[in-house]
């Protein structure tokens, strides 16, 4: 339900509520790119996207929200100022989030209607005398390992990075070297110890912003901000600090010597930056719900000032336990398999279809093959446009984002091949214009470079941006008939990745028109024999291979090789010693799909 502000709904507040309800900003879970991939346009429905939960009024849930992401979403929800509401589209509101105010299926018209409904709800209920406090439950994910690790994980899950104790470097359990001065830390340490061993997982209640502003005077509740989250951070970061090889060392405790502590002595254990200065390094999470990055990508940067020294990825941020769902009857397998990646569902459906088709008793079905090509290329064009839209958000280029989204909508809505052909000149103009804008090239050239990387270990447009001739389509006779050659560039940086994807988008439109089909007919799975099958396709992110074994009409084992696992290896290379925004550009240029990383 709508979480309202505390207060009696007087007439001026009602008026204010009506105004409030017309200006709804939404924070999209898991990310705007998932909303676009589902065919939704929140902006057109009246919800402008927010870059931070503090500026958002609505939490928009789209597609599938896995449990660990739901925990992160709960933290995000807790940070939103009231009145706040949850709008679930095509999904329901999973625990620990409170129930959704409005739930609709995933269609644009339904979204528009839902927004109207939400406006009405908000206008009525923005103020309420009974306050239902939402406690974001910091229940750690299911593994019962050490609480320190849990703390680290939930901290990594939270969108918002709060520096404990206000010290720029003091976040990470850096207990000050002087004994006897750290009274607040003793308290925290005790409380941390107390909460480090929860009686059972899921009981970390932490009391959120129960404070309300009454006429500018802040109530005393906000003073008790010594919260459990903070203790867990303390625990988390001490344990993180003790991890060997972390590179992020504690300050050693020194005995209190007459009150004078030289800075040289205090900093001698700190890691040194390349310019020789000992600074405290911050670990800042950029994910899993960071706007601009793919939703579900739980990235953590170790920052030396505003330069990245280390980047790491938490892979279980979108754990869904899909592997268990894949085994089962053959007939529904492509649909079940397509759940893997909401950003490229059709690509994986085609992959499953091709793998099953390889096991069929009959000869190759040319119609199916052509339509698979059509679907695949459509998915590729849509995926690249979606990627371009979120890339433009990161770059702050409004025009680019607006054009990418409008092209995306038009392509998605194109009912047949002729309308796609009509889109071609518009796409051409767009791509030419983007490539010819010097500011964009200046912004991206040399950023996120991976020059010396071994292209044999890379996949997809990333490999091709480094000159690697790696494309699963080159071996396909049908593609060969269409005169397909892979698009190669040699810059091995963000600009080359952009160029490759733009060129591939153009190429995909041509291939779609040549293939003459936009949707694949259902595979007749009755002819699938028992045994093993294998297929390789070029998904929008790279080559993906699927090995299947079927016995007794049921899929037994599924072995998938996804491109993002390979491109992920470049993470350290593209971010090392880059400024934060350049590092983010580098990461987004890799076009990693966190959904693919979860198996």
């Amino acid at each position, binding site marked *: 339900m709508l979480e309202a502000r505390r207060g009696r709904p007087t007439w001026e*507040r009602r008026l204010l509520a009506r105004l409030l309800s017309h200006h709804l900003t939404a924070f999209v879970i898991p990310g705007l790119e998932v909303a676009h991939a589902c065919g939704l346009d929140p902006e057109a429905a009246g919800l402008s996207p927010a870059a931070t939960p503090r500026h958002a009024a609505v939490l928009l849930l789209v597609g599938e929200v896995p449990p660990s992401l739901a925990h992160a979403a709960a933290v995000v929800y807790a940070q939103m*100022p009231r009145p706040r509401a949850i709008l679930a589209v095509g999904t329901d509101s999973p625990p620990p989030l409170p129930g959704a105010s409005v739930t609709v299926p995933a269609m644009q018209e339904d979204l528009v209607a839902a927004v109207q409904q939400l406006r009405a709800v908000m206008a009525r209920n923005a103020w309420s005398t009974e306050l239902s406090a939402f406690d974001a439950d910091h229940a750690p994910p299911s593994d019962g390992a050490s609480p320190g690790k849990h703390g680290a994980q939930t901290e990594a899950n939270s969108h918002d990075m709060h520096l404990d104790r206000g010290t720029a470097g003091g976040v990470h359990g850096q207990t000050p070297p002087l004994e006897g001065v750290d009274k607040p830390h003793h308290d925290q340490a005790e409380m941390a110890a107390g909460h480090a061993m929860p009686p059972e997982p899921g009981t970390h209640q932490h009391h959120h912003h129960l404070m309300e502003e009454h006429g500018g005077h802040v109530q005393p509740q906000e003073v008790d901000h010594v919260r459990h989250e903070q203790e867990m951070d303390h625990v988390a970061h001490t344990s993180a600090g003790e991890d060997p090889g972390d590179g992020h060392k504690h300050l050693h405790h020194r005995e209190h010597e007459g009150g004078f502590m030289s800075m040289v002595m205090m900093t001698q254990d700190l890691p040194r930056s390349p310019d020789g200065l000992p600074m405290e390094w911050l670990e800042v999470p950029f994910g899993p719900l960071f706007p601009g990055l793919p939703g579900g990508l739980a990235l953590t940067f170790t920052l030396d000032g505003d330069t990245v020294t280390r980047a790491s990825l938490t892979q279980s941020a979108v754990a869904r336990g899909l592997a268990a769902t894949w085994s089962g009857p053959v007939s529904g397998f492509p649909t079940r398999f397509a759940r893997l990646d909401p950003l490229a569902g059709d690509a994986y459906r085609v992959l499953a279809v091709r793998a099953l088709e390889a096991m069929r008793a009959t000869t190759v079905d040319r119609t199916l093959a052509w339509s698979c090509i059509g679907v695949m290329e459509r998915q590729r064009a849509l995926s690249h446009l979606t990627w371009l839209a979120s890339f433009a958000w990161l770059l702050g280029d409004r025009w680019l984002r607006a054009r990418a989204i409008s092209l995306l909508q038009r392509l998605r809505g194109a009912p047949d091949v002729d309308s796609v052909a009509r889109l071609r000149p518009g796409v051409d103009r767009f791509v030419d214009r983007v490539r010819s804008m010097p500011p964009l090239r200046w912004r991206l050239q040399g950023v996120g470079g991976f020059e010396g990387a071994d292209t044999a270990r890379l996949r997809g447009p990333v490999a091709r941006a480094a000159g690697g001739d790696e494309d699963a389509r080159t071996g396909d006779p049908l593609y060969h008939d269409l005169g397909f050659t892979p698009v190669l560039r040699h810059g091995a940086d963000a600009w080359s990745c952009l160029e490759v994807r733009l060129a591939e988008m153009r190429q995909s439109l041509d291939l779609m028109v040549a293939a003459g089909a936009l949707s694949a007919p259902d595979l007749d799975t009755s002819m699938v024999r028992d045994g093993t099958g294998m297929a390789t396709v070029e998904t929008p992110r790279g080559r993906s291979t699927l090995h299947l074994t079927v016995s007794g009409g049921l899929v037994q084992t599924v072995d998938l090789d996804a491109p993002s696992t390979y491109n992920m290896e470049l993470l350290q290379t593209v971010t090392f010693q880059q400024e*934060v925004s350049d590092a983010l550009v580098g990461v987004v240029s890799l076009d990693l799909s966190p959904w693919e990383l979860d198996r």
Partner: protein
Amino acid sequence: MNLWLLLLILAGAYLVAVIENWVVTGRLRLLAPLLAGIALLGRESLVPRLPDRLLFETAPPLLLAAAILSMAVLPLAPGTVLVDLATGALFVNAALAYVMVAVVMAGWGPDAAYAMIGGWRFLGQLVAYSMLIVMPITAVAMRAQSLVTTAIVSSQAPLPNAVAQPLGFLLFFLAAMAVAFLPPFDLPTASDLADGVFGEYTGARLAILRLARLVLVLSLATAVTVFYLGGWLGPLLPPAFWTIVKTLAVAAVMLLGGRYLPRTRSDHLLEWSWKLGIPLALVNIFWVGITLLVVQR
């Protein structure tokens, strides 16, 4: 009189908001900023845990004060100026320096990493724009033989400075966009930093910050008008009208320019401003000096 001018400043800021709305959404909606502002006041004002409370609370009013102060010395019409200082042109800079103080406070205060990085980025941006904001004003003051803003406008009666000192005009325009952290120079409030320094503010404080930013844009547009476009000078129509029209036109161009460009990289910004911008500003001063000496003779 002073009250009227203050109200006029607020009205001007409102019009800038309307223009910004038009640039972003493509539709001209006159009531939208007012309604959005009131709606913002209706939302809860949250305070992060463990902020530096003093700095957190001081930053929004300080930004607003700096913006209004920098506007105060710029004339609307001959004799119509809020504060008539003999060092008016310099005072504009003094007030704009507090923009940086406010942004750094807003970065540090909320105790959040993204905001802090945004504050640091603005420092780099300051190092880039601070010379380019001052040096063109030097050339303008040279022509006017005075730092008084009304004298600067009067000195443009034969020819506006935008035509007489085009290099200075271009540099000042770009530096003004950087001071107001408008796209493509919106480094401190970047969308890739979850709205940076503004990201942790909600409710009334956010409303003050947004208002402050609008007044800042207005003030810089007025500064461009006064220093380079001849302020109130113009045929037929009343002087105040000319100032207002020119200011809004400059604000529209500033807001429009950022729509098509990606955000600059901070290292590029620094490089271009120090390796290209400052030499050009020096050339501008040199050029103006020579022409003045030659013309005076």
